[in-house]
């Protein structure tokens, strides 16, 4: 069960998120853009659109299409990855779209597409969460109407201990006891879940605990996103 006194390998408490940074307006050419950082994980997102969907057969006359592309720079990780898409990035791109779309009011853009490009400049676990956090800020910046913003966070279970915002050690190195479990969540501003994945082992009871931790963590992320959006327009 969760030990509230637990101190992690990087000195954090179990429910402590790494230092966060967020900024709006990082890509001049884009219609909307943002950066989101959890410790050493840095994601940037740029939005282009809404614009006409080409080719025509891909158009949806009922609502707009959200198209997400998640991509890690080759040198963002210790062991270089080949540039270009992979099976992993293809899946995360789709997961990202699913995480974002429930809050977007894209029914008013029939036959149009909104492109969201996410690039991971530096990776140290929780990159999809950082990407989603940057993407929703970029979408807001692009003037896309939405019910709420979303906030994404991972909860980990290392051996029996729950922790929020998994770092690289907790994600891919730790292998004692029950091993490492990684659970990325995305919450809408009104507390619903738009994205959930899990890798590892956990009981339903402990999962409920993890969910509570994630919910509280997402609130902190929401505040960082909100502050960055408000500061970008010079509000004192």
């Amino acid at each position, binding site marked *: 069960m969760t030990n509230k006194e637990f101190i992690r390998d990087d000195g954090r408490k179990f429910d402590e998120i790494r230092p966060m940074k967020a900024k709006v307006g990082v890509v001049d050419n884009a219609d909307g853009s943002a950066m989101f950082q959890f410790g050493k994980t840095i994601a940037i997102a740029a939005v282009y659109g809404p614009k006409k969907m080409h080719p025509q057969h891909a158009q949806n006359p009922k609502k707009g299409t959200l198209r997400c592309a998640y991509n890690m720079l080759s040198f963002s990780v210790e062991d270089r990855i080949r540039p270009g898409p992979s099976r992993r990035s293809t899946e995360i791109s789709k997961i990202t779209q699913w995480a974002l779309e429930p809050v977007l009011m894209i029914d008013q853009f029939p036959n149009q597409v909104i492109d969201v490009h996410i690039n991971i400049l530096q990776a140290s676990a929780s990159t999809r969460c950082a990407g989603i956090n940057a993407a929703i800020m970029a979408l807001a910046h692009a003037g896309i109407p939405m019910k709420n913003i979303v906030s994404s966070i991972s909860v980990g279970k290392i051996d029996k201990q729950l922790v929020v915002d998994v770092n690289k050690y907790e994600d891919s190195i730790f292998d004692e006891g029950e091993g490492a479990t990684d659970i990325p969540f995305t919450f809408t501003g009104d507390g619903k879940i738009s994205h959930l994945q899990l890798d590892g082992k956990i009981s339903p009871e402990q999962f409920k605990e993890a969910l509570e931790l994630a919910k509280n963590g997402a609130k902190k992320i929401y505040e960082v996103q909100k502050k960055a959006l*408000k500061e970008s327009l010079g509000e004192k």
Partner: protein
Amino acid sequence: MTNERKLVIPGEVIVTGNDYLPGEGTEKREKEIVAIKYGLAEESNRLIKVIPLSGVYQARRGNVVIGEVENITFNGWIINIGTADNAFLSLTEVPRYVNKDGLDEVMDIGDMVVAKIWGINKRGIDVSIKSRGLGKLESGMIIKINSNKVPRVIGKEGSMISLIKDETNCQITVGQNGLIWIEGKKIEDELLAKKAIMFVSENSFISGLTEELKKWFGGGEKIK
């Protein structure tokens, strides 16, 4: 809610209570009026609106816009005004007789045109060049700013743009879609007009911007 304009993010409650009506960029949820867009919330006559400060141009009826001829059809021109759907200029919306075989002689692909939006419907956006000040741009230069900054560049009753025209001796047409046409007699004049517009666009949050621009012109090199 006070008269003060407040920056809001989507999902943020702007006001509570049944005294208010939800306007553009907002919606009513139970008793609350909530922002569905990122921008400045403002109230006038109990109507709450959110005015976006970023993002793409939203076409509106009556807007004067600048666009590029993208294609020619048998009865008019397809104009790219920066919206997802192109605008259509019918040959009946041109203030003179046009021979159906000679559309490209009036305006060819790649030409720039100042036009007014008179209709927006499911089929698309219809524009006209029948009024004064509209039509093909033969020379000069186009610059682009974010369309949300256009009201600042024009200023109250056109005060800002008049100041820029007077100080630079340039002819300027501001398209609501963020495209701005400038033509002066000298290169220096055009460059000064361009810099002045960029100054306003980049400093659009400063209050008393007209005074700041006057100082900017006066100070000559005091460029940010």
